[in-house]
């Protein structure tokens, strides 16, 4: 392992890049789309996805993709971030296209249609996640009668995903300096230890979180019902 300053800064930059892609970096910015009521955005996106899946035409998917790209550019989200977020579904769409044509011996048109449906409906979801924070989405989901317990657990999970990622990264570094992951046998043992360490950390954190929630006056009613 290289612990030089340069390598450390490179690692930090890489980690910041990952956080920008995954976290709410863009949805927390102040702009016309982030100010829009989350309920309106949820209804629009779900309607768009239903229309894409219901009608067997490429026009709806294409319109949704163009509208998503235009609106995301409008609020200053870089194309690179959009492509990175869309990389998994883009890859899947291409593979489905390939399978449809060469494996199922389907027409090119039918393959393109399903590929467009995947990209179109994923871009509707991308619009939602790039312009709405999870807390706003979950508060809005209460309006659509999502169970309160589920919403509460989801908020706690999202809060601690980043904490556990940091912890896992620290454990991996500690394992590496102790010659963990040196060969296949040691790697398998290191992975088991890592998973165990994450579970122990998760358990201890849940006790600490509960205590701090109680200290701050948490009651079982939890979130307000709006």
């Amino acid at each position: 392992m290289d612990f030089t300053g340069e390598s450390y800064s490179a690692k930090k930059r890489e980690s910041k890049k990952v956080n920008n892609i995954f976290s709410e970096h863009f949805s927390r910015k102040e702009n016309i789309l982030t100010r829009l009521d989350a309920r309106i955005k949820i209804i629009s996106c779900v309607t768009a996805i239903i229309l894409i899946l219901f009608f067997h035409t490429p026009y709806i998917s294409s319109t949704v993709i163009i509208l998503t790209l235009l609106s995301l550019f409008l609020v200053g989200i870089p194309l690179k971030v959009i492509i990175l977020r869309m990389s998994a579904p883009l890859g899947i769409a291409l593979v489905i296209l390939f399978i449809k044509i060469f494996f199922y011996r389907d027409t090119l048109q039918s393959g393109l249609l399903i590929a467009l449906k995947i990209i179109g409906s994923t871009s509707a979801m991308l619009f939602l996640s790039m312009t709405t924070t999870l807390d706003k989405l979950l508060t809005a989901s209460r309006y659509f009668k999502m169970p309160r317990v589920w919403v509460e657990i989801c908020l706690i999970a999202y809060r601690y995903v980043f904490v556990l990622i940091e912890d896992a990264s620290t454990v991996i570094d500690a394992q590496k300096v102790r010659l963990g992951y040196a060969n296949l046998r040691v790697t398998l043992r290191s992975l088991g230890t890592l998973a165990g360490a994450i579970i122990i950390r998760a358990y201890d954190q849940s006790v600490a979180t509960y205590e701090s929630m109680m200290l701050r006056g948490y009651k079982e009613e939890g979130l307000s019902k709006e």
Partner: protein
Amino acid sequence: MHLSEGILPLNWAGIWYAAAIPFIVKGIADVKKKSVKLAHFKPLMGLMAAAVFIISCMPVPVPTAGTCSHPCGSGIAAILIGPIMSILVTSIALFIQALFMAHGGITTWGADIVSMGVAGSFAGYLTFKILKGLKMPLFICGFCAGLLADWATYATTSFELASALHGSKPLGGVFMAILIAFIPTQLPLGILEGFLTGGMISFVAKRRPDILKALWEK
């Protein structure tokens, strides 16, 4: 193993939603009951969902099947907190992944809960219980639970994909073709998940047996 947004026709998306909802409803009812016995149960479920999220967000593309593959994590959750709670935390991990990482989707959420949550959790939990009942070493119980949870998830995902995409072709043939297509990644990934689960449970049992005692207490 997430089915991408837009891959399932609406009728199939609805069927998988209908199959997943009863487990979620039961899970929510159980959280309320278990919170009485273990005060920090709700935050614990949140943290478990975060742990499942981390384990299951390392996608490995499967070029021959058109999906991404990865360790499931639902086997680990199932042996610690039981299958129903594991389904609940898996639903949360899948929701966050669908929204913020474009892994899975909202229309495929039900199908993903059934494959990763229901099939994975029950396969892992039952395997662990049976082997533990036979007094097998804890690592072996965990290894087999992780392995079978992963393979049950991939078999269910293959069926979901085949049922949605087979068209005029026979369902059985398409199912077998997708199942075979998954083998290059899922066979080693299942073994990896076995070691992950076995190592996890023996590590926790050695270092913090109090956690297992608290979680497994009736």
